[in-house]
Each structure stands twice: as C-alpha cells, then as structure tokens.
C-alpha cells in the first residue's frame, strides 16, 4: 500500500508540474516578467496572443513601456515606475497597450517587484487583465452620468426661470394689497386684504426659497466678504421677528459674548438668512416661553475668530427619530406640522447648505415638548475696528423725497401704476416713459434728478437706453443717477449693468422703504452736485474718463482712481476689480467678434460700454487701440485689406490680456482671491 501510495503521489507531482506550466501559458490573463528598467524577459502565450507578437519579437527586444502610446508612457515614467519602486508593488493601473497591428488593448496591470538580499530590485512580475468589455461599460456609465447631470441642470434652470417669472406678478399683487390697505375699506375688506397680503407674502417667501435652493444646488452661490458688525446685524434680525414674537407673547433674548470683536469679515446676507430662518422657525414653533439668540466667542487670534451662534426656543421640539430629517429638503418632522404651521421645508436645508459654504455645520439638540436649540460656528477673519460711516439710509427716519424730479422708464402698466402711487404719496415729481427710446428722448428734453429704469423692455431695453444716455455728449448725462428695476437678482446682471453705466439696482418686488431711501440718496447727491456712493463700476462721473489720450506708451493701467473712489474700502475695491475682470473678459470677446465680422455697430456699442471703465483704470493703451480699431473699421467699408484689422485685433486682444493678467494678479496678491464668478 505504501509503495502504491508513493507512486500515486509521484504521478500527481508530474501532473501538477505540467498543469502549472499550462496554467502559466494559457491562463486567462497575461503574465510578464521584466527587468527593473522595463525590458521584457518572459511573457506567457496569452499575452503574446493578445498582443499579436511572437516571443522572439518581444523577449529581450522591447521594454514594457515600448508597448504604450506616448501618454501612457508619460504616466509610466511619472507615476507607475516611481510608485512601484517606492511601494514594491502596484495594483490595477489602467493602461492601453499597443498591439503589433497598432490597435489598442485596454488592460489593468498588477506588478510585484522582486528584490535581492540588499533589497535592490531585480525583477518585476506583472499580471495583465484584458478589460475591453469593462471599458465599454465604463464609457456607457460615464455617458449616462453626464446625461443625468445635464438633465438635472436643465431642470434646475427651468425652476429658476419660472421662479423669476413668478416674482414679477407677485410684485404687483403685494404692492396693490399694500396700496389698498392705505385706502378706505370696510372691516370685512380689511380681513380679506390682510389675508391676501399674508398669503402673497408667504408665496413670495416660498418662491425665494426655491430660487435660493436651486442656486445652491447648481453651485451658483458664492460668499461675499464684507465688514460686518455682528452686534448690529443680530439686533436688526431680532427686530425682524419682534412683532411675530410679541403677538404670541414670547420673550426675545439676546446674549453676546462681551469679548466679541466689533467687526468681522463675512457675508451678512447669508449669515442673516440662516439666522432669520432659525429665529423664524423658533418663533413659529413656540407657543409660550422664549426664543433666545446667543453668540459666543470660542476662539480669538489676531487674525480670526471662531464664533458660535445658537438659537434656542421653548417650543414643541422635535422627536428624536426626526432630528436628522428636518435638514432634508422638502421634509418637515411630520405631515401634521405642515398642516399646522405651513412652510416649504426648505429653510433648514438651505441654511445647512449655506453654512457648508463656510465649512460649518448646523447642529440641533431637542427634546420633544421642551424646545430645540440650533447651533453653528463660523470661523471669520477680523475686520477693521473703524466705526461704520454715517449713512443717510440708516433706519430711524424716513428721508424726504418730496419735490425730487424723477423719470420712470417702465413698460409694464401695472408696475407703472404701483410705483407711481408711491411717488404720489411721497410727493415725487415724476414722468413716465414706456420704453427705452422714449426714455432717452425724455432725458434729452428735460433735466431729472434721477432715472428709474426697467431693464427688460421692448424696442430698446434698459441697458441700451442707459448706455445711450451715458453716451450723450453733455457731461451731465454721465452724472445722472440711473437705478435699474428688475425681477432678476442683482448679481446675475451686475456686469451688464456696470457695462451700461447703471448706478444701482432695486429688485422687484421692491421694498418701498428701500426705494424711498435710494431715491433720497441719489437725488440729494445729484441736486447738491455731490459724488454719490454707487454700486457698480462703469458709472462714476470721472473727468479723466473723457480726457483725450495722453500717453499711449505709459503703463497699461493703474488702480489709483478706483482707490480714490472707494477710499479705504478694500472689500468694495476687491469687488470692483472682480467685476471689472468679468466685464473685460466679455468685452475682449466682443471686440474680436466685431472686428472679425467687421460689424461697426457692435464695435461702437462695446466702445460705449467700456470707455468709462477704461477711463477709471487709466488704461490709455487699450483705449488708444480701441479708438484706432474704430477708425480702421470705419475705413474698412471701402477697402478689402484685412491685414490692418487683424493687427489691431491682435493688439486689442493683447492689451486686454495684459489688463486681465494685472487685475488677476492684484486680486491674488492683495486679497488672496481668485475670480470665481457667481454665475457661470
């Protein structure tokens, strides 16, 4: 038996050796042995078959990297080889191998390095998997992913467009309700009106939430960095919920750390939005007791502070199992909540997303029936301790606008009616023009203190009308304050407005106080011939903007006028530079297009829009080139010679490049910022 056993084993040994050889040669994967420099010294049949090479063509003839197309070879040299040497092995690196007949074979490669006793590499052993099929799937998956992302983007855009569209009629509804409330009405009508007003305000709130949400979703929201007095900010926020709290008999408490730095750098709008949402919820879900806001200083260095914000209430609380759910979009703790309290269920989700922009997280602690506490912490840079400049639009008194001479350019009859009702109330002396053409004509006919300009009108839109007014020869037209009215949000069109020479912007549906304050601000400055604080770039009446070209060989530009304009306000200056960069990027393209297509009209249009900004930047070289271009283009009607036009196009492009590079560098070095537009 023993002997038999032995021979049995011997037989098997032979079989095993034979099958190991067979397995090596015919395995469903390729095997390769290479020297450390990549030279192939052994390869199995499977690999040779895949690649279409005979053994003698490959062994000691080619390196592994010789089988790679050039991009793969660069990857081999910069990633694969170093990684293999450092790690001793490499797993699942994706290469395309070039077959003898030139087609590519997608493979995954695993390599182990064999070392001698001095741990010097002597041989690399590589296993090669053919992934032709998987590559196909990957491509298909990628395609499907792109398709899905595109579809989501289109939907989001649709949502955003529709919401914008809804805001315009909402303006009319809310404003009319306000006006009606100021007329004589019966008790019954009063109730109807209050309901109408409250419902439409709710609806507007909802639409704004949806808009915010879709913007956050599409990554179009960026944080501004401005000097913020936190104490002032939170006090005014509390003021906003005071009436609602008083109606319910709730106490409002505010506690601020006594060491709180007076000013920090942050985005007051976004921080305010989050806190308003939390405070609003707290009041909404609390029937008795109090709502308190607490600001605590957690960390303070000479550069930045970490501040925690907590909103605590004594309301209904949130059941434990629903704590995370409240942050999901369109979700409230339960269906009854929606019935009883209303709301979109978007507020907390928006707040959480906004805070994520700050790298912060909104957390909640709650006990059902006892109340909830929502907290978040922000790391904010310190601002300068300088007190805020007195501002004529500060709350407290209603500025007098009686007797201001104003032109309203607006095509929508409902809007005209609403706005003019306010004007009548305030004693504003106004005229109305129903489109851009009529608006420009009116401005030429009469002197106004101020123009309110709708942006989207038939025949001639607000941008064009403003640009026309700015390009009128007399200097008073450069100084006339023009405020845009639009249902779009300011950020979306800041560039165009700046380009057109619009000074400021009021969003529809507008807030009557804001409208009144802005009229007062600009009209007062205009009547006294004072410079006014403005929002956009291209508008400030600057004598230098229209002085003739002095020194075409001087520096490309300088920021001195910008600095004079804005004084010490670095944040505004930064914003101004950013806006200018975007502005120039657009115009760089426009000038090229106009020159290539020899479109004099477009060219001149762009000239009008950019001249003031160039003046502000003292960018004489570019201004000079653009003027030359205009002359050439005018002559070009009578000549076929394209060469001078090409040359000037190149020169303009180059000057824009120089300016953009300089401005971008300023942005980087002065504020450590890059230009990331809010809108793509």
């Amino acid at each position: 038996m023993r002997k038999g056993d032995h021979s049995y084993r011997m037989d098997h040994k032979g079989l095993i050796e034979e099958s190991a050889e067979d397995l090596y040669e015919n395995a469903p994967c390729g095997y390769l042995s290479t020297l450390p420099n990549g030279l192939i010294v052994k390869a199995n049949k499977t690999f040779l078959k895949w690649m279409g090479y005979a053994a003698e063509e490959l062994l000691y003839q080619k390196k592994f990297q010789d089988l790679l197309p050039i991009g793969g070879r660069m990857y081999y040299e910069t990633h694969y080889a170093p990684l293999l040497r450092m790690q001793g092995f490499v797993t699942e690196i994706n290469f395309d191998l070039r077959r003898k007949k030139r087609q590519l074979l997608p493979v995954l490669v695993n390599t182990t390095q064999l070392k001698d006793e001095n741990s010097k590499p002597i041989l690399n052993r590589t296993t090669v998997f053919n992934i032709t099929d998987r590559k196909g799937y990957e491509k298909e998956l990628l395609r499907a992913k792109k398709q899905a992302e595109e579809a989501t983007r289109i939907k989001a855009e649709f949502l955003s467009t529709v919401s914008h569209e809804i805001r315009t009629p909402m303006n009319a509804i809310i404003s009319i309700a306000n006006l009606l409330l100021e007329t004589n009405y019966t008790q019954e009508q009063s109730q109807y009106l209050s309901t109408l007003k409250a419902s439409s305000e709710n609806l507007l709130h909802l639409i704004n939430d949806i808009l915010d949400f879709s913007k956050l979703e599409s990554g179009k929201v960026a944080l501004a960095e401005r000097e913020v007095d936190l104490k002032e900010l939170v006090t005014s926020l509390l003021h906003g919920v005071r009436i609602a709290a008083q109606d319910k008999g709730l106490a409002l408490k505010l506690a601020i750390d006594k060491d709180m730095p007076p000013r920090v750098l942050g985005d007051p709008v976004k921080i305010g939005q989050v806190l308003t949402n939390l405070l609003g919820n707290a009041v909404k879900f609390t029937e008795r007791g109090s709502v308190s806001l607490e600001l605590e200083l957690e960390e303070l260095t000479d550069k930045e502070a970490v501040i925690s914000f907590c909103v605590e209430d004594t309301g209904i609380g949130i059941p434990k199992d629903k704590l995370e759910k409240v942050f999901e979009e369109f979700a409230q703790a339960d269906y009854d909540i929606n019935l009883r309290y209303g709301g979109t269920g978007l507020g907390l989700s928006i707040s959480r997303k906004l805070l994520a922009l700050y790298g912060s997280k909104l957390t909640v602690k709650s006990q059902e029936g006892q109340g909830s506490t929502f907290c978040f912490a922000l790391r904010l840079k310190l601002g300068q301790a300088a007190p805020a400049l007195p501002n004529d639009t500060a709350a407290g008194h209603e500025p007098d606008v009686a007797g201001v001479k104003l032109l309203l350019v607006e095509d929508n009859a409902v809007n005209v009616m609403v706005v003019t009702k306010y004007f009548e109330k305030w004693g504003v002396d106004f005229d109305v023009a129903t489109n851009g053409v009529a608006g420009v004509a009116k401005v030429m006919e009469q002197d106004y203190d101020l123009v309110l300009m709708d942006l989207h009108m038939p025949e001639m839109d607000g941008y064009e009308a403003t640009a026309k007014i700015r390009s009128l020869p007399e200097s008073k037209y450069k100084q006339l304050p023009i405020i845009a009215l639009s249902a779009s949000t300011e950020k979306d069109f800041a560039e165009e407005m700046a380009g057109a020479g619009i000074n400021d912007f009021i969003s529809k549906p507008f807030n009557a106080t804001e409208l009144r304050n802005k009229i007062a601000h600009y009209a007062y400055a205009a009547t006294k011939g004072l410079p006014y604080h403005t929002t956009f770039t291209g508008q400030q009446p600057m004598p230098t903007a229209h002085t003739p070209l002095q020194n075409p060989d001087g520096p490309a530009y300088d920021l001195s006028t910008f600095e004079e304009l804005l004084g010490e306000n670095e944040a505004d200056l930064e914003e101004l530079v950013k806006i200018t960069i975007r502005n120039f990027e657009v115009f760089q393209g426009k000038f090229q297009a106009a020159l290539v297509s020899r479109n004099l009209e477009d060219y001149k249009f762009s000239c009008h829009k950019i001249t003031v900004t160039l003046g502000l930047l003292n960018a004489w070289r570019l201004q000079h080139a653009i003027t030359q271009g205009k002359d050439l283009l005018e002559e070009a009607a009578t000549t076929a010679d394209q060469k001078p036009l090409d040359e000037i196009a190149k020169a303009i492009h180059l000057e824009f490049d120089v300016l953009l590079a300089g401005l971008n560098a300023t942005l980087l070095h002065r504020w450590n910022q890059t230009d990331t537009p809010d809108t793509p």
Partner: protein
Amino acid sequence: MRVTERNNVNVRGTGEKALIFAHGFGCDQNMWRFVTPAFEDTHKIVLFDNVGAGKSDSSAYNKLKYETLQGYADDVLEICEALELERPVFVGHSVSSMIGALAAIQAPEMFEKLIMVGPSPCYINKEDYIGGFSQEDILELLESLDSNYLGWSTATAPAIMGNPDRPELGEELTNSFCRTNPEIAKHFARTTFLSDNRADLKKLQTKSLILQCSDDMIAPVEVGEFVHRNVADSEMILLEATGHCPNLSAPEETIAAIKSFL
C-alpha cells in the same frame, strides 16, 4: 494657514547647511526616500509636497496661482523664509528643477546652489527646439490620467468607496505616494507640460548642476544640453541611470553626483 502645513514641510538631519529636496510631477516627497539618508548626518534636510500633492493642504490649491510654475516658485521662497534657511542648496526633480530656477531668478541671493534632476524648460517641440513631445502627446497624458483616476483602480477606489473590509490596507496603501486629487493632477500636468521657461534660463545666475539620465523620455539628453548651454554658471553630469527618476532607480549614482557638486 501656515506655510509648513500647507506644503507638509518636514525637516530632519543634523547638519547646519540646508538641502531642500523638491519632488516632480506625479508623486510626493517620498520620491527622495533613497537619497536623503545619505545627507542626514551632514545636512539639514528639508522635504515638502507641492500644493495638491501628497499630504499638502489641497484646500490651498488655487487654479489661478498655480496656472504657471511661478506660483510653485513663490511657495518655495515662502518655505525658505518660514524656516529662515541660510543660503540653502535646492535640489529639484523634474518640473521642480524649473520651479527652483524660477525661485532663484526671483531671489538671486536665496540659494547657494541649484541641482536640477532631469530638468526641462519646455516639453513641447517648437521650431528648431526639441522638447520631446507634441501638443497632442500632452492631451494623451491628460487622458491617461483620467482613466487611471476614474478607472476604479484600487489605488483610488478607497478614496471613492472607503475601505471597510481591508483596514490594514488603509493608510499605507491608499495613501499611496502618487495620489493626487484628479482635478489638481490634471491641472498640474497641464501647467507642467505646457510650460515654456526657455527664456528664463539665461536669467539664472545661481551656480547650477544638471543631472541628466541616459534614456529619459520625459527629458531627453538634448533638453539637458539645452539647459546646460543656456544657464551661465552650470555643469552637467550624464548619469548611466535610465528613465526619468534616477533618485529612485539609481540612488547611489544620484547621491554621488550631488556630493561631488556640494
């Protein structure tokens, strides 16, 4: 943010004189692991990761700043200032050779000497200049970066899917030496391979050594010779080592060459 954290700066060694080792495109400071021990008894060794690579703080990555190699050169100077280094010697591999050269041009007094391992001032063939590549080649590289970062390779999969079943592979493997955020890797590749710093070479005053490999497809011998011809105060050593990373494939030869120049 502190410069030393931003660039994951590591200082070791016992000497007075500092040697700064800068890694090239692809991996991180580990590229120098076979070379630096030879200098630890005699020098202060400064190692760092370019922003976006290794354990640097990739939140400091800024497309505009790193659009050109000058952005990386600024970082090098900031590291020298932060560590208060006295006339250090800069050793740069691959693209970091040019980064070092740009830093030395900007601050001519900063470095005592410059050692460039496999430098190339311009990778793309232009007129009568041979850089070794065409524009299309670079696009191909970007594509292979794409497939290697998105191709479910296990080197990156843990980053995407976590690695719950094989915790032992956690740090060591997944934090592998050549892992970079794919977007940053692509941008760095573009910045690197589309750079043209030929004109800068003539401005370089610092005494320089060029270490050229024998069979380097990334920086061929012609390129090394070009650098040598154009840098006024330079020497060139042609290594027997092949490939682009003599610091890994032939550390002894690399060490000897560096020592001969110090």
